[in-house]
């Protein structure tokens, strides 16, 4: 029993680290799956697993609110939209068997490497966690407070960005051939023709 209790204290001391590795062990294969799976829709579903893993990481960092938001918005909302878009573009849902073009491989590798280096350096250079608030289970209040005071400007910019996206989506969904003058003339002519034809039919 003595050994067991020692083990328990040891485990609880490094609990967070163990859990981090556990989550990583689950999430990283999902991430590779997203990249390597030839079946694009299955890759989309694997993305849900990746986002779920990230939200588990947030939970480990005591950021409950962020974890829930991550799960709700990224893991479900956005990924589902992505998956549906994929289903609509590839109705037969077969595996993509077209061979990759060698000419694209080198630039892709270059861009990927550069991106990785940039991210790595950014992560190293930033002084993470220096000015963080005290960890508390009630950090929703802190999030709300800092969003509307210290980070008010980025927050508003994000809202405007979303608004622009929304308006853009509405514009895309509308029929844009009503915009140009020539199109409108064409349509008017067509309607005239049709109405004439209809009159003719009525007369007959």
């Amino acid at each position, binding site marked *: 029993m*003595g050994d067991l*209790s020692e083990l328990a204290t040891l485990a609880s001391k490094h609990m967070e680290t163990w859990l981090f590795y556990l989550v990583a062990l689950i999430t990283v294969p999902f991430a590779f799956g997203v990249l390597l799976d030839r079946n694009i829709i299955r890759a989309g579903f694997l993305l849900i697993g990746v986002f779920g893993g990230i939200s588990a990481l947030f939970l480990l960092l005591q950021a409950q*609110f962020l974890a829930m938001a991550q799960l*709700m918005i990224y893991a*479900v909302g956005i990924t*589902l939209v992505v*998956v549906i878009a994929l289903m609509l573009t590839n109705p037969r849902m077969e595996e993509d068997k077209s061979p990759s073009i060698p000419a694209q491989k080198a630039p892709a590798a270059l861009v990927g490497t550069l991106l990785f280096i940039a991210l790595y350096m950014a992560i190293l250079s930033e002084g993470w966690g220096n000015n963080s608030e005290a960890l508390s*289970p009630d950090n929703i209040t802190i999030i709300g407070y800092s969003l509307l005071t210290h980070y008010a400007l980025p927050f508003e910019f994000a809202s405007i960005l979303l608004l622009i996206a929304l308006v853009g989506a509405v514009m895309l969904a509308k029929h844009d051939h009503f915009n140009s003058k020539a199109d409108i003339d064409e349509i008017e002519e067509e309607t005239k023709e049709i109405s004439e034809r209809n009159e003719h039919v009525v007369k007959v």
Partner: protein
Amino acid sequence: MTSSAVPYNLNEIGKFFLLSGVWLGIIFGAVWAACWAVGMLVPQLILNAYPNDPCALNVANAIRLLTPLVGVMVFIPINAMYMVLAERRGLALFTVRKGPNRVGPDGFLQTAADAVKLLFKENINPHGGDVLMFTLAPIIFFAPSVFGAIPLLAAVTSNHDLFKIVNLPTGIFYVLAMSSIPVVGIVMGGWASNNKYSLVGGLRSAAQAISYEIPLVLAIITTCFLVGSLDVVNIAQMQKGTDNLASFGFLNWNFFGAGAIPHYLDLLMQGKLEGAQVVTSAFWSLALAFCCILLCGIYLTGACAEINRIPFDLPEAESELVSGYNTEYSGIRFAIFFLAEFTNLFIVSTVAVVMWFGGGATPFPGFLDANTFASIATPFNQALAQAGLPPLMDGQTMSGAFWAIFKTYALVYFAILVRGTLPRFRIDQLLDFGWKKLIPLSLILLLAVTYIRELV
């Protein structure tokens, strides 16, 4: 429809209530016994066996932490069995039929027989389907409803010691996040079935869930604004009425404007309002109550769509899509889908009860409250104490649980009534209603409540 010509159907109604009573007794007896055993009895036995051992203490605590999970795990299958039966018998009442009445005494065991049958049926994998995803889909559909229900346990048992740990500060947000996951299971199952009907069902489900989640979440967030908390226990306890007029019984519920009306009545009775204030204050109180009733309506509508109940059951519209996303499912995987569907209905009703109908609070002060239940519980506890066992229950928890269950099942029966009445939407009407009516309405209400709250 002449009222004089209607002979009363007390026989069938009586049978329905008897059935409900027996099944609810079974469900909550089992859940209560399981929670008591895991949360109190086993830890106590361990501590008695190894006194003064820190390791035994750890083990006992670990077992105690499992109580909420065990409670939910025991609850879900039995509850789903009862709800299927209640739905069939209730619908039979509404459609002037008798419903299942052959298996067991008067059909009490019909769903138990169905469950056993489903468990023994063959699992068939569709040709050309993605077997892994096909198997995973029911699990993804079902698991969130288990974990999502857990924080609500704390709310409905008046924050009992055993369930305190599941009371997250982000309570209601957690429930919402969890309840949004099942859609993934539906889309996944629909896609992995390699069947056109399933795929269309899955796609419809995704479109519907994404559209109706927005008004649903907005309705809940607005109520959280009003209350000033995301914590389910906090929200439930704030609505607890007293016998003062300032927070009288059911008038204190969020459904009636989060205490605006009794507060106004109290001020009026004490003569603190003068002149035009009497009218304006009454107007704003009533406006807030009206907004809250609308919010509750939006939530119930959105929830109906989220869990694919009739009139929003387009993902499994049997007249168009055979059975929608679960066309290809059979055996235990189908049973899991079925189980989760009814559990989701229960969870959604519980959320509504916690958010708007006062959680475990009595509607009338003094009516079947903690004292009444304490007087029932005392003899049991004394008998157990004499046998050296931990107490079985306390009045506070019993009263909370009783009223929460009562209100939840009242909402479930309302859902059954709606199912018996309304026809199914068409998919374009459904999206139109969601995006063009409910979302603007909930946004307007969000604004209105924020302002009116200051004016009351």
